[in-house]
């Protein structure tokens, strides 16, 4: 039985997309991320779970250098994307964020048309030579975000006029429009109702065929449903990182066990 599992696992072994070593994050005096080592695989959904304030968002933001925008934040250690150090001086953070896209907790479409929301990134990065190409990118991105059918007849309507779930899918379309390789999602469903949540979860699973997805979630059930790998953070430490099935049926660390089963740790 175990042998078979091991074989399945090795067949399943994906390429490492992001490799983080010895990562520390400080906000002034606060040591928010301590010694984190983690390898994020390609074509895999990786969930970050843990109590509020344990550093999930902080660590997620390291992966596309969003912490650069916070003055007091200081990041140490190495984070490699496809083997290249993303904190290298020569790396342009704006280019990096096109490759490592991000979707936030609250849907935050620009106060522009649906079309312009999606076209925004490709325009900045000069990805389309003409209007026809841009149209194509917009359609493809909206399809990937499972929003095309609902939006195709109202592309010029404001993005802010969509429902919450549609807005979140619009933000996903916007993130995938720049052809990223990694998608970071920070509690993408926390402002959505169960049906919209289900649609976004379904979408996350589809996105996995093209991207490496990292999702921060407060919902254990959501982590269990959408991810293949789960990382449990506690007080800035990465306590346990393993297959999602293992984490939710038989975790190694008692802190993980307490957290996932809703016990006082």
């Amino acid at each position, binding site marked *: 039985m175990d042998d078979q599992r091991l074989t399945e696992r090795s067949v399943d072994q994906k390429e490492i997309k992001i490799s983080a070593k010895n990562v520390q994050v400080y906000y002034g005096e606060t040591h928010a991320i301590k010694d984190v080592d983690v390898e994020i695989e390609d074509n895999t959904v990786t969930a970050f779970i843990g109590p509020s304030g344990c550093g999930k968002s902080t660590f997620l933001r390291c992966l596309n250098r969003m912490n650069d925008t916070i003055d007091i934040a200081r990041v140490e250690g190495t984070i490699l994307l496809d083997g290249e150090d993303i904190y290298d001086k020569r790396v342009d953070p704006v280019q990096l964020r096109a490759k490592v896209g991000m979707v936030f907790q609250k849907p935050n479409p620009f106060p522009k048309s649906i079309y312009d929301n999606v076209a925004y990134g490709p325009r900045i990065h000069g990805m389309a030579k003409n209007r026809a190409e841009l149209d194509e990118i917009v359609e493809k991105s909206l399809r990937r975000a499972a929003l095309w059918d609902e939006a195709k007849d109202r592309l010029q309507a404001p993005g802010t006029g969509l429902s919450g779930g549609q807005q979140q899918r619009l933000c996903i379309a916007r993130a995938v429009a720049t052809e990223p390789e990694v998608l970071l999602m920070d509690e993408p469903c926390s402002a959505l109702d169960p049906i919209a949540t289900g649609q976004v979860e379904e979408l996350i699973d589809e996105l996995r065929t093209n991207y490496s997805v990292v999702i921060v979630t407060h919902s*254990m*059930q959501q982590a*269990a449903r959408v991810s293949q790998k789960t990382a449990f953070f506690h007080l800035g430490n990465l306590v346990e990182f393993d297959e999602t099935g293992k984490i*939710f*049926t*038989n*975790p190694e660390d008692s802190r993980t*066990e*307490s957290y*996932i*089963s*809703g*016990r*006082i*740790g």
Partner: protein
Amino acid sequence: MSPMYSDQEHIVSAYDRDLEAIQALVMRMGGLVEAAILDSARALETRDVELAEKVRAGDRTVDELEVQINEECARTIAIRGPVSQDLRVLLTVFRLSGSLERVGDYAKNMAKRTSVLVEMRPLPGADSALRRMAREVQLMLKDTLDAYVRRDAELAEDVRQRDHDVDQMYNAIFREFLTFMMEDPRNITGCMHLHFIAKNIERMGDLVTNMAEQVIYLVTAKMPDDSRPKGDETPYMRAEASDDKGE
């Protein structure tokens, strides 16, 4: 806090109360089934039709408890979304109650046959041999329930190994019945009933062994390896040997 439950409490304390209540139901069911095994064996030995009738009637309660436990498990799974240890507790409870219900059925069956056997002449030693075998299974069940309460995988493993003894007792009884039947065909009807009883007790032992394995799973999160001594092939060999003798 009793060792029956995890050392850490849930944040939602009603969750703990639910789990405790379900586990209390299993212990109650276990106690009733233990008593049914002993009573049915005693009823058989003493040809006590009244006691046998009590066992048959009591099986209703065992069945009802199983239904109740299943419902409580389903409800808890739906409401609490149990994972890891909690999930193992519920899966274990679910399977233990299923096994207990079947052990209870076998005890009831033994009691039913007792009512028939009163009308037949007793065979020397058979009833007490069956009672010893039933007693052994009841002890295995008791230890399994203790192992469950104490989360004691070693004790459960011990029970698992003892199933071999029950198998051997069954083999011995089987051989004895063959002899009785060959000696005098008038023994056949009685021996057939008694043999069914022996087989049923042997099956109870198997079910209790499964329960012990479930306890090992609960404690270690792994089913035990299949390294248990098995002794149930002997009867087939014996039957052939006896055929040879008969020729």
